[in-house]
């Protein structure tokens, strides 16, 4: 295919994508015409609600709160995941315990199990929310960083040891920089999971945050607010992913596993 033809195809592709999007929204609008608003509100109604929420300080506070919780949980999960992933590197005997016991356990433990246990243990509190989110995010961080540790370049490490006998220097100048792309990969996946699944924590463990807002709206059969909140989450997810994580990925490189 000539480059002009490729260009033309890309152009058509994009036009079709945008028309397709409009068509989907139109279909949504048509469908919503015959359904009561509490079941499926139309795009206009949802759009209007989003505009209202966007200037509503209470809602913005909920949104900021959720974002802050996710930030804290991500930080804790990353640190914990990195520590666990690095353990076999410094204590080879622990490899089996980390990779064959801890990782599969956290990876297959149902999220809702953590939610219920944390609610029982800590009641409605920040601890509950953070605990649940960390427990859900931990395996994603651990898998990525552990992969980075596994492929650590033995030659680069030997280079480090040939110049210094201090392990901390080798750690900060060789080990950590090698792992950065894996941290970025872990961050991207965990950030997505945090918005999609870990919000669950706010349904049970909190009296605020967007998870709570959604649950209240659902109980009130307010589909409009549920949908509007969902779209806000999509927006926040995409913004964070494009602005922060994409920037990190271009700056430091990204490894996906």
């Amino acid at each position: 295919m000539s480059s002009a033809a490729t260009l033309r195809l890309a152009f058509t592709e994009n036009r079709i994508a945008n028309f397709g999007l409009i068509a989907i929204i139109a279909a949504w609008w048509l469908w919503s015409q015959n359904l009561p608003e509490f079941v499926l509100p139309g795009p206009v109604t949802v759009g209007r609600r989003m505009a209202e929420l966007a200037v509503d300080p209470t809602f913005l506070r909920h949104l900021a709160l959720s974002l802050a919780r996710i930030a804290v949980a991500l930080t804790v999960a990353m640190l914990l995941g990195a520590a666990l992933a690095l353990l076999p590197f410094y204590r080879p005997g622990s490899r089996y315990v980390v990779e064959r016991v801890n990782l599969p356990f956290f990876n297959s433990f149902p999220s809702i199990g953590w939610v219920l246990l944390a609610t029982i243990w800590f009641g409605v509190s920040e601890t509950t929310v953070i605990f649940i989110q960390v427990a859900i995010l931990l395996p994603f961080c651990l898998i990525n960083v552990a992969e980075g540790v596994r492929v650590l370049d033995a030659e680069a490490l030997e280079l480090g040891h040939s110049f210094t006998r201090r392990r901390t220097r080798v750690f900060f100048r060789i080990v950590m920089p090698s792992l950065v792309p894996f941290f970025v990969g872990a961050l991207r996946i965990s950030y997505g999971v945090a918005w999609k699944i870990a919000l669950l924590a706010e349904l049970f463990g909190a009296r605020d945050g967007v998870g709570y807002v959604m649950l209240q709206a659902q109980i009130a059969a307010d589909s409009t607010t549920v949908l509007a909140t969902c779209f806000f989450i999509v927006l926040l997810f995409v913004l964070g992913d494009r602005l922060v994580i994409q920037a990190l990925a271009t700056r430091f490189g990204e490894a996906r596993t």
Partner: protein
Amino acid sequence: MKRAVGRGALASQLPNRALFWQCVFLLGFGLCWILAAKNMPVYIIPGPRAVALDILQFVTTPALRSSALASLFHVCIAVFLAFVLGGVLASIAERFPIFRALIHHRISPFFNAFSGIGWALLAVLWFGVSQLTVVFTVAVVLLPFSLINIREGLASLDRETLEMARSFSQRPLRTARLVLVPLLLPFLIAALRISFGVGWKVALTAELLAGDRGLGYVMNIAMQEQDTTRVIAISLIIVVFVRVVDKYGFERIQRKLSTAFRSA
């Protein structure tokens, strides 16, 4: 085994040493659990014995057994639906490139970014508390996983092998069955494997929020009755079941496939 000397002895014992640490870890964990359970009321931390007995209940009590089967049913149907839908979308994008941007740059990211919790709450409003709600939620959360994996498989297809197939047969179905599907198989299995793992987590959540049966539903009741034992029992059942299926099902199939492909 030859007798090892010096450093060699250490090296040959390494697997045993790992096993030793694994046992130490598990024993320590068990001990901590028992100690914690001794000093805490049952509704906060039940002992391992109580949990083990409760797990046994799921084998002996028909009602519990059927709720476990209901969950399995939900997961399997949803995995299947997401797989088929993802496959159809990925194939359309592959066959008609003009739809590529719509599917991979609009639809797929949207589903990928949409909150699973949001789907569950919406599905209750749409379909009420029912099995349909559960299956819908799980399927729609799994859709982007299937779509992305199958897309990757299609993108990595070996054009030359496909051309070889087409040179021998004019029938698309036959070339698909004999060449296309075998080429795609590793990616299809990978898609199923990821979906199955994630599907369980989502399914329990959906059942708890919106189900009228299944393990998530049982968990919901257990929570209301402050029956922590049951919550832990169900969680552990899931851990073991998902792990066993993953290790002895999917992993084994993948290993077989990869050796088969290497020898080709």
